């Protein structure tokens, strides 16, 4: 194990797969100079401009040509510079990639990876802060992952590259340099569709993903230290397909569940997790399933005070946990 940042772990995962697969291509805007966040830093020098490909500023075709590359023996990993700019590619993702196998009755597969930095907290304002995961987790045929730790960031990028289907890989941009952690030194992949139990406690369960998983864990440690609440923290890691067993096991064991995400409330991942628990673990519940999420406003404002007012924080999470535990 070696300690690495989240961004180093993603880069390392990409590099190792580029070494392993000589038809793998990373493509996107400003990829060759390293990308605006520098995830692909140094790759041009190592693999050349054909495999480290700067595309025109045209998101639909970034995904569209990736689909073509994938069916002709290449392994494309597309970068959408900010998740906020993925909407022009939604037709290619939803109507093409996601339906590719189903509509051809398994005649064709569509093994593409689309990476997208997402999330708020960096004063990126309306169009550099969005969380778009729920929109895509809704779409059958896609797999959607959102790692929170460096180990999972590396393990899931490898799993995504090796997967036979389209995988949307959401990397939290605030986590890039802020989050550090131990990463195994040997080759490994993190199974898509499996959640990770970050903490075990008997009072309540907190379910989250991405950067919020860290906030939840810290809130849980704080409340445990205070002797107030002993919480289980479940990090979803994969948003589609959800790890139903892990979610229901945790819900059944504690009987009280809080779901936290920075994406806005309505129709978010929390709604699906909550419905799943209500449907399949109702008899075990000691309290209504609670959700803590950003309110339903269109996007994050630029002003720091406004942004902070919308995002869940360690404090608001801790308060919601106390409240639920007291129910």
């Amino acid at each position, binding site marked *: 194990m070696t300690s690495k940042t989240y961004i180093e772990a993603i880069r390392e995962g990409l590099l190792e797969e580029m070494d392993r697969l000589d*038809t793998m*291509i990373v493509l996107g805007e400003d990829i060759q100079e390293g990308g605006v966040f520098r995830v692909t830093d140094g790759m041009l020098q190592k693999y050349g401009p054909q495999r480290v490909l700067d595309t025109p500023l*045209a998101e639909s075709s970034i995904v*569209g*040509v990736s689909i073509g590359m994938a069916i002709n023996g290449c392994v494309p990993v597309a970068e959408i510079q900010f998740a906020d700019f993925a909407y022009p590619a939604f037709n290619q993702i939803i109507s093409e990639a996601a339906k590719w*196998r189903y509509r051809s009755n398994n005649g064709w597969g569509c093994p593409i990876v689309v990476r997208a930095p997402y999330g708020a907290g960096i004063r990126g304002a309306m169009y550099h802060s969005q969380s778009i995961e729920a929109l895509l987790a809704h779409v059958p*045929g896609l*797999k959607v992952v959102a790692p929170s730790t460096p180990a999972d960031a590396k393990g899931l990028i490898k799993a995504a590259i090796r997967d036979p289907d389209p995988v949307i890989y959401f990397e939290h941009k605030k986590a890039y340099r802020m989050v550090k952690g131990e990463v195994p030194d040997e080759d490994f992949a993190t199974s898509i569709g499996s959640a990770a139990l970050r903490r075990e406690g008997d009072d309540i369960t907190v379910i989250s993903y991405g950067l919020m998983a860290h906030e939840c864990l810290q809130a849980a440690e704080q409340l445990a230290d205070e002797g107030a609440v002993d919480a289980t923290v479940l990090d979803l890691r994969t948003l589609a397909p959800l790890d139903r067993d892990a979610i229901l096991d945790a819900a059944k064991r504690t009987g009280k569940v809080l779901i936290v995400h920075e994406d806005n409330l309505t129709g978010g991942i929390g709604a699906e997790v909550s419905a799943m628990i209500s449907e399949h673990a109702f008899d075990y519940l000691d309290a209504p399933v609670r959700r803590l999420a950003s309110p339903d406003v269109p996007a994050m404002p630029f002003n720091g005070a406004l942004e902070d007012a919308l995002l869940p924080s360690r404090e608001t999470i801790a308060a919601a946990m106390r409240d639920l535990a007291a129910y």
Partner: protein
Amino acid sequence: MVRAKDARPQSATSKLHRQMYRDMLVSRELSDRMFALNRQGRAAFAVTGQGHEATQVGSAHAIKRGTDWVLPYYRDVGVMIALGMSPHDILLGLFAKAGDPNSGGRQMPCHWSWPEMRVVTRSSVIAANLPHASGIAYASKLRGLKEVSIVYFGEGATSEGDFHEAVNFAAIHKLPVVFFCENNGYAISESSEKQMSVLHVADRAKGYNIVGQTVDGNDILTVHQTTKWSIEECRRGRGPKLIEAKTYRFSPHTSSDDDRRYRTRAELEEWVKRDPIDRFRTRLIDEGELTAEEDAEMRAQIKREINEAVEAAERAPDPEPADALRFVYGDETAP
């Protein structure tokens, strides 16, 4: 019995011409039949391209089958016949049967997919498959493979952003893609003047610094030669080509459309006089490559074949209801 055509020695060119003529006839007969089956209430939907036979059959016979990648659109019955998909298989798609090779009865008819022939699955979304052609061609180039992608679309597709993005990408990387536009003057009801301010789709090629050619889409030999040249240029690494074949569809857009609302019968009649099949037949007979008797015999035989194909396809089994859940993911992850 030895038939006249067998008794006469045939050159390779003559053989090709007869095959192309036959494919045009099959395409027309099958398309007419698919519409009729819809009108009889035996098929839920039909989409065809009567009138496009020269553009489709002529171009498809320039494709290196099994090597080149083909991305046809839903009007391309003639392309598929020329590539060798049987009327029976196409009819399995019309009736949405389990054996439909395109989609197992999942897609509307004529939404082609045939992996063995490198015919790539497509949606109903106009122009969405153009970037796929560019991506396939990028992979061909990266991997050093001498294969070409040809993607078919109507003039309406050239209004879509994906047209621009795909052609631009192919032009930047000098990719082996033939962009083949079957310009029939109408995108459902919208005439070309509502789609573009240029007179010819091929004029758009200038904006990408690639070669664009406008051809008479009802002249099968011109279409064939132009496509053949374009594909070979691509194979030599000389970058993408845009072909615009001007033609006309005799049928409504689909079985759900009434074209009398947006175009005159007089206009249609003018184009029917220039029927690409009649035109090629006249030429073949004039050149001594076909006799009127052979033509009649060929037509009768095709009618019989299609009668049999309809009967067999209509009787073929439907998919199992439980199959609706299959192939969401490659690893059969349960939905």
